[in-house]
């Protein structure tokens, strides 16, 4: 491919004019403008997943509330990141996300902190209707010595699977099942220790809610003292 001049596009985010590279997204422009909006499933270094639906924006002339993480930035776009219906919808989505988490757990605390950071108070008004098991045979998987997976702290953003499949090319975990039964799991829903997991830690490092968390060294319950699996 021939060398081309690096082009930029200019758009307005909440009244502030901002420029980003031509291939950039509206979320890139928002971050460049210093606008704080939750984007739970978007890793700064990875392709967008589009699952959490918290980075919603309004764009003049565009129907609905598109997710900014995969909306290409175009010259002259007029983007709002808050406003009456936008705030209401984002709150409902965060309420639904909260409803996935066990109250008081590390996921709920992480999400509440995240919500507060963006000026949204965490209300768990849809929490009591949650179906807890999500089709998984177990909510807590502490079979591997290196980390623990607690599905009751998981918001199914998919970042761990992206890290495992697309970044590390290991493929030890996947999103298993659909709808209410969707969960993070391994082949045949076996414990993670039976999978090809190498305990590389990528999934743990990208999890936004702490559903995946490292086990402490010297943990007496771990057979080999918390070293690498396998």
């Amino acid at each position, binding site marked *: 491919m021939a060398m081309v001049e690096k082009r930029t596009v200019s758009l307005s985010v909440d009244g502030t004019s901002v420029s980003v590279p031509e291939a950039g997204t509206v979320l890139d422009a928002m971050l460049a403008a210093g606008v704080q909006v939750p984007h739970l499933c978007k890793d700064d270094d990875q392709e*967008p997943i*589009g*699952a*959490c*639906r*918290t980075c*919603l924006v309004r764009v003049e002339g565009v129907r*609905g*509330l598109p*997710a900014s993480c*995969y*909306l*290409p930035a175009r010259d002259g776009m007029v983007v709002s990141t808050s406003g009456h*219906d936008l705030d*209401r*919808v*984002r709150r*409902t*989505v965060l309420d*639904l*996300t909260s*409803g*996935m988490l066990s109250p008081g757990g590390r996921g709920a605390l992480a999400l509440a902190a995240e919500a507060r950071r963006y000026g949204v108070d965490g209300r768990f*008004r*849809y929490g009591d*209707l949650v*179906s807890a098991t999500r089709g998984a045979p177990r909510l807590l998987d502490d079979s591997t010595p290196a980390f623990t997976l607690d599905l009751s702290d998981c*918001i*199914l953003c*998919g970042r761990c*699977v992206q890290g495992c*499949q697309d970044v590390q090319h*290991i*493929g*030890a*975990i*996947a*999103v*298993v*099942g*659909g*709808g*209410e*039964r*969707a969960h993070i*799991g*391994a*082949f*045949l*829903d076996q414990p993670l220790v039976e*999978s*090809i997991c190498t305990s590389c830690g990528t999934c743990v490092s990208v999890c936004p809610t702490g559903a995946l968390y490292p086990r402490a060294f010297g943990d007496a319950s771990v057979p080999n003292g918390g070293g690498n699996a396998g």
Partner: protein
Amino acid sequence: MTATGAPPFQYIRAFPRERTYVLPALHLLHEHEGYLSPEGLSAVALHFKIPNSELYGVACSYSEFSRTPGKGRQVSVCTGLSCLLNGAAELVNTLSAAPARGAKSASAGQYEVSETPCRFLCNLAPVVAVDHGYVVEANPGGFADAIGARPGPAQRPTAPPSPLEVRRVTARCGVVDPSALDTALAAGGYEGLKAARRLPPAQVTERVSASGLQGRGGAYFPAGRKWETARLRPRPRYLVVNAEEGEPGVFKDRYLLEKDPHLMVEGLLIAAHAIEAERVFVYINGEALLATARLEAALADAKAAGLFEGTEVEVRRGAGGYVCGEESVILSSIEGERAVPRLRPPLPVESGLWGRPTVINNVETVANLPFVLTEGPDAFRLVGTESHPGTKALCLSGAVRRPGIYEVPLGTTVRSVVEDLGGGARPGHEVRAVLCGGPSGGLLPPSKFDTPLVGGSLDPGGAALGAGGIVVIDDSMPIRDVLYHLAAYNAAESCGKCTPCREGAPRMRDLIGQLRQDSAPPDAIDLLDALDEAMASASLCGLGQMAPLPYRSVRTHFFEELTRP
């Protein structure tokens, strides 16, 4: 793998090692084993060099695949809306109560009874599937004998034409022998293809644009414009015909493929010529066995007759789930990925299969092409409305005297379809509403029956023509039961990718269930309205965005029944 004897799963190793054959391999495994066995899944993962967890995630996203071995014969009662309106609940009770399930009848043998939503034989309700065959217009009495008779595929009747109909895509249905190419040729088949091939591809595209033909899968996007967008992009380009037809209450694509498969084959070849497609896929519903068999035979006959001129056509079977009809899910599925929608942009015409420009057209859209090419764009516009020209194959079912397939000019009123074609309410009953657009649409009350049926939204409540399913609801089923049924369906069919739909749809179902039992919290309507707004505006794909429409329509037109018994 065993160390001795013939290596197992030889049939899986016969597939080229390309990820696009993952779903065909899973289908074959399921056929051989009766379920997706752990050993079989391992063999598929090994053959395609996909980590087994990743393959497991793919396999589990297709709801038609069983992951446990079945016991005995499978009897499943359709409990779709049209079947419920025709006595399906009574059938379930009778069949489930039978001692030892079939022990009464030696010929029936042992069987398991289950329920499934929609078998797409809605005009023949109630329907019971027995293994891969069907008992239609099922009667609870003497059912064991019907099971014992091992029923085959259901034969759909062809209604005598009505003066209100304009039969274009259905013109040869019931007239030609679907298994004989010569009868299709004698009835003018493939004349449109000949006309198309006399023109350069760009001119074929211009003719289709001039006709105003719009997508008949429910979106009514101009077919010609979609082709033009694809043609602006460099080759290779691909064509996908969407024959997944998974919306409850819609059975017109199956009807067309079962009765006159050559019409669609001809249309497909016209479209492939127009967009200069390197490869064509027909993605068909995994349970549409008769339609698949007739389509495959028609493709083989047309190819043998030299009509393909080098076009490569492959049939791919889906494996369940309403979401499989969503066009970007079809792309993921053909590529051997999980059945979840892709992010848009980019659109499939910009970047579809393997990143190449891909046109996705519905069966009925493609079936309209021979007419456009033989009769011309002006003739196509002779019926229908200015903004929505042509005809639409409607699927009328539910609580109505004469259910069936009716092809009418776009712009025909709901009343004309329900009363004139369908014969109105059943004796002793009263029509309360029609459901237009299935679980992604809404209820329309009789006061709105003069609404003309065209593409787009028909009513602020949410009713839409969509793919053409019209289910008549009468006083035999309370409106809130209808709503609960639709909300439960949408919750069950959510693919689970995005939060508003995955989390919102089950909560919508539960709140409606509580309203139905008069046990809802006082703010239930506020909670439901917030869910409606969030799902409609924040969901990833069209199915999630439209999932709240049944609720919105009932809230708009039947609010009293929602909140009071």
